[in-house]
């Protein structure tokens, strides 16, 4: 379902892009137009019956949109943190990862850990440590999950700077 929704969003975004309008702005303008129609409708007693159903439809649409929004912001995601080799990137001796400033997970080489986040977006901070326990490098990344659920992040790839650090979560 979420895949279909994503696709629709993309089509809509492309469509709006013709006039250089972003998706959010487009939705805002649509809402404004609808509100205007609603406002005009109040005065037209002749269309009262029609308008009532029209407005019910708008409210229904609003509720469905609210549902999607709640789904979007309220979803809990499992974030698997993986310190394993992938695509020529070698695992680190130790890497400390904290998500949204929470307690950090200490991952030794070939370790895997699990964190849960709520909401579509989170900030991940990974600190790579050397043999002496000194911080070698720090990477901070904001990741948007959209409508997907659980993901696995391969830390060596992430720190290494390659884009495809998100791997499907194990089931």
């Amino acid at each position: 379902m979420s895949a279909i929704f994503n696709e629709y969003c993309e089509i809509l975004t492309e469509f709006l892009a013709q006039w250089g309008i972003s998706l959010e702005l487009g939705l805002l303008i649509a809402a404004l137009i609808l509100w205007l129609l609603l406002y005009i409708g109040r005065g037209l007693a002749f269309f009262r019956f029609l308008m009532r159903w029209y407005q019910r439809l708008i409210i229904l649409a609003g509720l469905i949109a609210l549902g999607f929004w709640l789904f979007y912001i309220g979803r809990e995601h499992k974030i698997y943190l993986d310190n394993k080799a992938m695509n020529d990137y070698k695992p680190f001796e130790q890497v400390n990862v904290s998500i949204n400033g929470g307690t950090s997970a200490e991952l030794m080489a070939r370790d895997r850990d699990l964190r849960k986040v709520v909401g579509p977006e989170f900030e991940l901070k990974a600190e790579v440590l050397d043999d002496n326990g000194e911080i070698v490098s720090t990477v901070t990344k904001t990741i948007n999950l959209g409508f997907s659920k659980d993901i696995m992040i391969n830390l060596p790839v992430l720190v290494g700077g390659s884009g495809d650090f998100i791997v499907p979560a194990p089931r």
Partner: protein
Amino acid sequence: MIRRLFDIIANNAVPAVFIIISAFAIPLSGYSASYLIQELLTRIGRNSFLILSLLIPIMAGMGLNFGMVLGAMAGQIGLLFICDWGIVGIPGIVLACLIGTPIAIILGIFCGHVLNRAKGREMVTSYILGFFINGVYQMVVLYLMGWIIPITNPALLLSRGYGVRNAVSLLGIRGILDNLIPTVITGTQGAGQFFNAQGGNPFILLQIPLIDGSIRIPLATLIVIALFCVFIIWFRKTKLGQDMRAIGQNQAVSDSAGIPVNRTRIIAIVISTVLACYGQIIYLQNMGTLNTYNSHDQAGMFSIAALLIGGASVSRASIANVFLGVILFHLMFIVAPVAGKNLIGDAQIGEYFRVFVSYGIIAIALVLHAWKRNREREAARRSLRGNKGGE
């Protein structure tokens, strides 16, 4: 004068009996005041919404809506979906309500149509309807979920690949509403201890010197319930509410006045079912565990019992009845087993004592109600034949 006194006692016999039994049972149970208050507050937050959902059908003269179980099931289906999708916190609760609402509306319309065909026997019909829909619910949850209805979370599904597990943990939304505005009452000493136990989370603290221990207040839940009470008061003032009151008192007259009786009755049941759906979600967010096949079973029975014990009748119920009922009924539930045990000295006797007292009193409440109605009928008859009728 004596007659009037008798009337007052007769009209409040059920709450009176409960208050007397509680007065005996509370000291017997040996529970501390803070425990009792805490439990009562929890139960007010947990149950009153469900009970309040009964008020509107009573207003419309449809008696006690045993069919509220239908709403409870709708709420549970909403919860199952958000559990599957992993929606947590307040968005989870609101989304569960959003999903439950259309299901509750459909079930309510169905229930309303059936009840319109069984006028005068609404209560027993809705009770049986509850069983029937329970069968449908079990089929949906046990066979269709995971097979036709997409449910993928392995924590929810039976390992055979379809059907939902018997107990579903609602950790994601557990106590979310109750603790949205964390509030606590402590005695003068209890504050520090409570802080330690909390690990320094912020909360509103009220100190009342007389209390030992700490009492958490489900403030947000209580606010929601208060809003709901305001809704009911407002609803009574609307045209729809007025029509329902009219239908509740005399259907034939309302019909001849042009009020759409059947439609209004269906609306009453739909509102009740939808509210029961929300009530069950509030109930379960407090319970923390969804007993997939049983959680809704007693929702109707216990809510109705509490309402009756609060002094309501099949034809008249107020918001005050709801709260008095929750307090008295659940006080009995908390206190009776231990009181029975302490009285007789055997643990299982305590349980039997509770069952006996609780259900016995529900029976008494219904009998007293019937008796009261007969008395009223007799009084009406007396007025019919004028003063000359003798005796």
